[in-house]
């Protein structure tokens, strides 16, 4: 049996379990007001407003290269805005944001010279914990996330889905109230990605955090988020905000073919088309609800 398939089932199990939230982590809100950002002449973000309540998952979808990743870096305090405000848990300075956000980059960036568990425990080691203690703390999560037995595996020995889980654990273990996820599953095949979405949904139900999730996959955003903001092409601004019909439903495959979900997805798609740059519109195909919704996404 594939490890990934097994995981999807286990994720659902622990999602329904009443786990206490992690170590009394303070919840933090993300607040973006009138944000502008540019690299020299290139304007990447234009007057963007966005709010995420504590423990809310907010999905950001937008065309490729619209500045989604830049937005995440701004939230995390890895960059400073050209104008406007970005606050995380009340902190507006880069340092304060950095200390409240954990960032999961698009590529897993697991360090090949560390074992899986040492990668996951990186934040703890950086905080000065001894290796043994850091491993002990990460170990509990390995068990819970179905990675037991792979603690000492090198990253190269893990499947794509497992690598992504270790990368997510590394983000989670950092113990920050806000998670900034940059297309976490973009590199995975369609089936693994669907499984990982359900897995992440379970993980977030068990250990709620404020999440800013960037993705180019409308379905992923609608399934995992409480709210989805559709961004325009560069310079990015919010074109539309949608409430997700069934955030992180235990049965993902059923949730994404629910008529309400399909309708939301189409609404988001049409907003995406509106926000797309002039000239790209014609190439996006026919408008309206497709006859076979499962066929359109091509997943599962």
């Amino acid at each position: 049996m594939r490890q990934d398939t097994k995981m999807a089932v286990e994720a659902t199990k622990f999602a329904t379990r009443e786990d206490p939230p992690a170590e009394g982590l303070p919840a933090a809100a993300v607040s973006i007001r009138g944000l502008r950002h540019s690299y020299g002449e290139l304007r990447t973000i234009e007057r963007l407003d966005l709010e995420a309540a504590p423990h809310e998952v907010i999905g950001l979808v937008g065309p490729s290269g619209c500045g989604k990743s830049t937005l995440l870096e701004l939230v995390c305090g890895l960059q400073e805005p050209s104008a406007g405000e970005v606050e995380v848990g009340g902190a507006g300075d880069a340092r304060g944001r950095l200390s409240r956000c954990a960032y999961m980059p698009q590529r897993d960036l697991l360090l090949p010279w560390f074992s899986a568990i040492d990668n996951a425990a990186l934040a703890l080691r950086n905080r000065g914990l001894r290796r043994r203690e850091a491993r002990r703390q990460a170990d509990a999560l390995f068990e819970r996330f179905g990675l037991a037995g792979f603690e000492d595996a090198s990253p190269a020995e893990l499947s794509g889905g497992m690598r992504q889980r270790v990368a997510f654990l590394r983000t989670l273990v950092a113990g920050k109230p806000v998670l900034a996820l940059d297309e976490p599953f973009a590199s995975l095949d369609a089936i693994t990605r669907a499984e990982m979405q359900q897995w992440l949904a379970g993980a977030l139900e068990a250990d709620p955090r404020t999440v800013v999730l960037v993705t180019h996959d409308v379905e992923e955003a609608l399934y995992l988020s409480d709210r989805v903001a559709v961004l325009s092409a560069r310079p990015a601004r919010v074109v539309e905000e949608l409430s997700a019909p069934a955030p992180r439903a235990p049965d993902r495959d059923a949730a994404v073919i629910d008529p309400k979900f399909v309708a939301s997805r189409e609404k988001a798609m049409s907003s995406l088309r509106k926000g797309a740059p002039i000239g790209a519109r014609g190439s996006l195909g026919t408008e309206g609800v497709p006859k076979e919704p499962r066929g359109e996404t091509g997943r599962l």
Partner: protein
Amino acid sequence: MKRWLLPTLVFVALIGAWQVAATSGALADTLHLESFLVPSPSEIAKSLWENRSLLAENAWVTLKEVLLGFGCALVAGIAFAVALHLSAMLRRAFYPLIIASQTIPIIVIAPILVVWFGYGIGPKLAIVALICFFPITVNALDGLRSVDPDAIKLMRTLDASRRQTFLRIEAPTALPYAFSGAKIAVAVAVIGAVFGEWAGSDSGLGHLMLQDNAQLETARLFASVVVLAAMAIALFALLALAERRIVTWR
């Protein structure tokens, strides 16, 4: 095993051809030389055996020069690479100079070093170190600069200090590069030591070669060359082995 078979066969064939050409006198005739000036591989082997203690004695002197010079270059080169990596100002100031310094034929300044530092180990160390410094520094610096910028960002959000980022990401990334530089350096280090000895010395394989050259001891001259080659190959192999043991993730 198969990897070794073909080069070994070619090597044996070349040595065999040399043996035949030398013993039959064909090689000496073609070169218009007395046959005692053109030793055969078997004569060189005989000379290696008969002069083993003399060769070993002088090889030890040369090996010391190589190891100490290489060691100095390794420490200085890595330190320099780290300093240039950490400070953009130092990098801008020194990097072009390091590259330009490669146009100076270090071997040619060997006689000057002998004038300054005398016949002892000093000038040899200086030459070996100067030759080794460049490949080590440039490779280590390239390695440090090849770190994925996203990995640095990731470390920042994982609360890493500058030192932790260096030790956990930059240094391991640069390690294979530094090994490549060191392997190139150690091979040329032996040449550097010999040139240093040619410029002025009272012992070492380079010194022995000069003597043998003057006395037309061609078999022993070749024996010295064989020992020097073996030394360079052995040092290279040792570094390659160390790399395999340390850089396990590649």
